């Protein structure tokens, strides 16, 4: 059984670095897309209860726009690119035109899906390069709905093992001052993936028991 209650500091640091490198690449891609500088916060690696996970993005019932993809290969799990609705609308205005109306229609949503695809792709390919592991993202899907309803998909595998999930949460924002576009990348590796990640990065099982 994979118990992460015993993750040591070093392992948490390794996971933070994974988030840092992955989201750093994704932020660079986003900066290219928007042609403006994007800043990253230091990723937060945390063991959260199922309820807490939605609190991180405004609460269980808060409506979010999320691009979701599953990860297959040596590492399995879920990845979410999450924007609050008004931030998604701002992103659309930035991508199309400041006057874009009828925000979050099908065309706009598929644009967000494609942005999510590019960003999550950058994140995961950086992770694959770093670890040398085979990491295959699925075709992404996009949804506008309650945070808990969306994020619960990421908990289905983890839920078979326990009642907490380890989330690598990387938050980004643009530097436009007031009302920046900000969002989250959530990486939720399945329980079995942690040992493979640590192994690939040279963190031994022995360290785990310290």
């Amino acid at each position: 059984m994979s118990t992460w209650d015993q993750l040591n500091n070093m392992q948490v640091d390794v996971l933070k670095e994974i988030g840092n490198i992955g989201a750093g690449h994704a932020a660079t891609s986003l900066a290219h897309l928007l042609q403006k500088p994007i800043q990253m916060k230091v990723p937060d690696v945390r063991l959260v209860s199922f309820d807490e996970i939605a609190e991180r993005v405004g609460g269980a019932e808060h409506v979010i726009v999320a691009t979701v993809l599953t990860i297959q290969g040596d590492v399995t799990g879920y990845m979410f690119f999450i924007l609050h609705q008004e931030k998604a609308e701002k992103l659309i205005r930035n991508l199309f035109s400041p006057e874009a109306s009828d925000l979050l229609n099908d065309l706009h949503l598929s644009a967000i899906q494609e942005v999510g695809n590019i960003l999550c792709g950058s994140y995961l390919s950086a992770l694959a390069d770093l670890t040398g592991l085979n990491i295959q993202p699925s075709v992404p899907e996009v949804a506008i709905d309650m945070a808990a309803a969306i994020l619960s998909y990421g908990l289905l595998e983890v839920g078979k093992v326990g009642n907490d999930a380890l989330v690598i949460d990387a938050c980004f924002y643009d530097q436009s001052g007031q009302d920046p576009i900000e969002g989250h990348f959530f990486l939720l590796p399945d329980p079995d993936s942690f040992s493979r990640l640590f192994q690939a990065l040279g963190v031994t099982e022995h360290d785990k028991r310290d």
Partner: protein
Amino acid sequence: MTNVIKVSMADLKVACAPDRIMTVGLGSCVGVAIYDLSKQIAGLAHVMLPSKDLSRGDTNMAKYADTAIPLLIEKMVSCGGNRRKFQAKLAGGAQMFSFQGSNPVMKIGERNVEACKLQLKRFNIPIVAEDTGGNYGRTIELDTLTGVLMVRTASKGIKKL
């Protein structure tokens, strides 16, 4: 005073009149609401997976349809509920994502609903209303006094069952 009792994901609780009982953000999960109007007792389970067989060492009985529903019934009976008067309403079990080509676990919403129905049938509890399936999330709130289940969504409005 009326309290609103909140049930977390993979949890279950029992409420007595005049309280209401709710759970937020059901996606593929199923909210199983059972109530007894004669005693004004209601129970709600936020079921995440269809069967305890899927567990890999997890011991949370409220998470799985086949353990949550028997446990919910037992709790309601021990709070004074009359099993013969129990009625059930179901909501949730959506398929928010299809993830084509990947694992069949994505039919999880449908499987959750089926598993819940099977359990309710096993205990001879009639399902008087349901709002399941679709591709959207739901928040539900059950009134112990009336047995009315309010279903709230992000984009499809509010329904009363």
